[in-house]
């Protein structure tokens, strides 16, 4: 058997270059490729000595570059991190970067707010429309919803919910310069005579998704517990609101005159309840492809929740405003940066749960404190027990819904292409087939 330092060095160099191939491909064929190349080296050296080796390298390098690229683009794991998560492993950094992008837009706008830039409000009200466009384009082209589209879905949902609030509150008086939104508002005003109709549509959609989830996933006791807490809090909020209306107007107006206010309160709470529950349930539609990463939808939803800060300096130029602004920035950073980064880079389900719960609870802690920020801005206005209870209930509602999301999305392994051509089957796929 022919041996030479040239052959040995070529063999070592080729072994190094094999790192250009995807890991799974290397594991499967790396040794065999090295053997074949060594055989080629011996044959070439035997025929034409060093020149033979040079000619072999000139032939091998383009082949190596072309096939390494081909294997990367056709490998089932090529889309991991870009379109889908890696099952039971930290997300590759390329995917992490794309996931962080939409949140970073909001974070940067918050920093801009601290420096007195007015365009942060444009980001707040318009960015979701723009951030969803690349997601829809990629979804349309690849037929696969990208993992980095989850936060934009939450952001867009939040914006649509805001518009729904405005419409419920102001009806035909809602003004917008956006012709598409104007058309939507105009069409929706046809329902305005009965506010229960849109609520009913949302409720039916929510109940359908709930039924689907219960049928497919066989929910645990924790699911029912947190759903119960969520429903109970909404019920308490509604009853408390109605009691307050009745007590406030008792003796001044008849029940016929009070009823529109009560109706409005029911509609309002019903809208908030159904849209929020619907958000969590919509997340279950994404667990088949993205597993626990569906939690990024509620994360995107609560990301733009607080908008207070420097522009209010004109009203109250005290140290309070910078403190509030920094608190808001911390809130935004937790949700836009730390939560997605931590969840993405943690491989285990327990670790992901911890990452989400710790960051969201910290963020909601800031959110809860910020609910009282007007007391610092306007110290002469006292805090009533009713306001304190309303704020506490609001926070419990948020927390219970988010924990409900954690419970619903965990332990659902994303469906990915296995090393062969047969995709693994998730419980959703099995149930849907049945």
């Amino acid at each position, binding site marked *: 058997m022919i041996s030479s330092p040239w052959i040995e060095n070529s063999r070592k160099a080729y072994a190094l270059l094999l790192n250009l191939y995807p890991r799974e491909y290397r594991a499967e064929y790396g040794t*065999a490729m090295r*053997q074949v190349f060594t055989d080629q080296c011996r044959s070439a050296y035997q025929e034409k000595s060093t020149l033979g080796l040079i000619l072999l390298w000139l032939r091998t390098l383009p082949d190596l570059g072309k096939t*390494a690229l081909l294997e990367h683009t056709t490998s089932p794991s090529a889309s991991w991190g870009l379109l889908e998560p890696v099952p039971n492993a930290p997300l590759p950094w390329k995917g992490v970067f794309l996931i962080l992008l939409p949140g970073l837009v909001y974070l940067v706008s918050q920093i801009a707010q601290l420096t007195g830039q007015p365009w942060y409000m444009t980001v707040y009200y318009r960015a979701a429309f723009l951030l969803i466009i690349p997601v829809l384009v990629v979804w349309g082209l690849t037929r696969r919803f990208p993992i980095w589209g989850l936060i934009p879905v939450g952001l867009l949902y939040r914006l649509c919910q805001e518009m729904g609030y405005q419409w419920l509150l102001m009806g035909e008086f809602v003004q917008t310069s956006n012709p598409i939104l104007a058309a939507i508002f105009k069409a929706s005003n046809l329902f305005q005579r009965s506010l229960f109709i849109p609520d009913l549509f949302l409720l039916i959609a929510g109940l359908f998704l709930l039924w689907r989830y219960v049928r497919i996933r066989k929910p645990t006791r924790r699911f029912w517990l947190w759903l119960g807490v969520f429903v109970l809090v909404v019920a308490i909020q509604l009853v408390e609101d109605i009691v307050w209306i009745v007590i406030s107007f008792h003796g001044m107006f008849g029940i016929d005159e009070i009823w529109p206010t009560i109706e409005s309160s029911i509609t309002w709470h019903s809208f908030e309840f159904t849209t929020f529950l619907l958000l969590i349930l919509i997340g279950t539609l994404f667990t088949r492809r993205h597993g626990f990463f569906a939690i990024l939808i509620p994360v995107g939803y609560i990301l733009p929740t607080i908008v207070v800060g420097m522009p209010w300096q004109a009203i109250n130029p005290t140290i309070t405003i910078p403190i509030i602004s920094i608190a808001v920035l911390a809130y935004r950073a937790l949700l836009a940066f730390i939560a997605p980064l931590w969840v993405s880079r943690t491989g285990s389900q327990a670790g992901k749960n911890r990452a989400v719960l710790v960051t969201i609870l910290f963020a909601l802690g800031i959110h809860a404190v910020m609910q009282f920020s007007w007391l610092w801005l306007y110290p002469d206005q006292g805090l009533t027990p009713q306001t304190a209870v309303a704020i506490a209930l609001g926070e419990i509602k948020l927390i219970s819904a988010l924990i409900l999301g954690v419970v619903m999305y965990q332990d659902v392994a994303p469906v990915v292409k296995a090393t062969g051509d047969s995709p693994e089957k998730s419980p959703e796929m099995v149930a849907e087939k049945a």
Partner: protein
Amino acid sequence: MIEGNSPQQPLTPAVFHILLALADGEKHGYSIMKDVETQTGGKLKMGPGTLYGSIKRMLAASLIEEADERPDPALDDERRRYYRMSDLGQKVLNAESQRLEQAVNIARQKRVLTALIQRSLA
């Protein structure tokens, strides 16, 4: 007619010649490579990347199967992975060979081949 997950015809030159190399028995990677080179008079020289990329896709399409791993005494004492043609691979090779034969017959009828032979003799 070839059905199932067989590759679309016409086959790529690499796949066709690998199948042809395995037509006379199981072979390991380097042996396939040398056989292909001989078949084509040195015109098709595959690198290890093309060879194993094709083998991977042919295994996925069930055109070939892996045989026992063993050393080749003619080369060294390293264990090598041997491949053999599957029944589907045999059918695909037959179909592709027939397709090529038909193409050659048509070329003959149209005197393309004759013209080529005359040109090469001249």
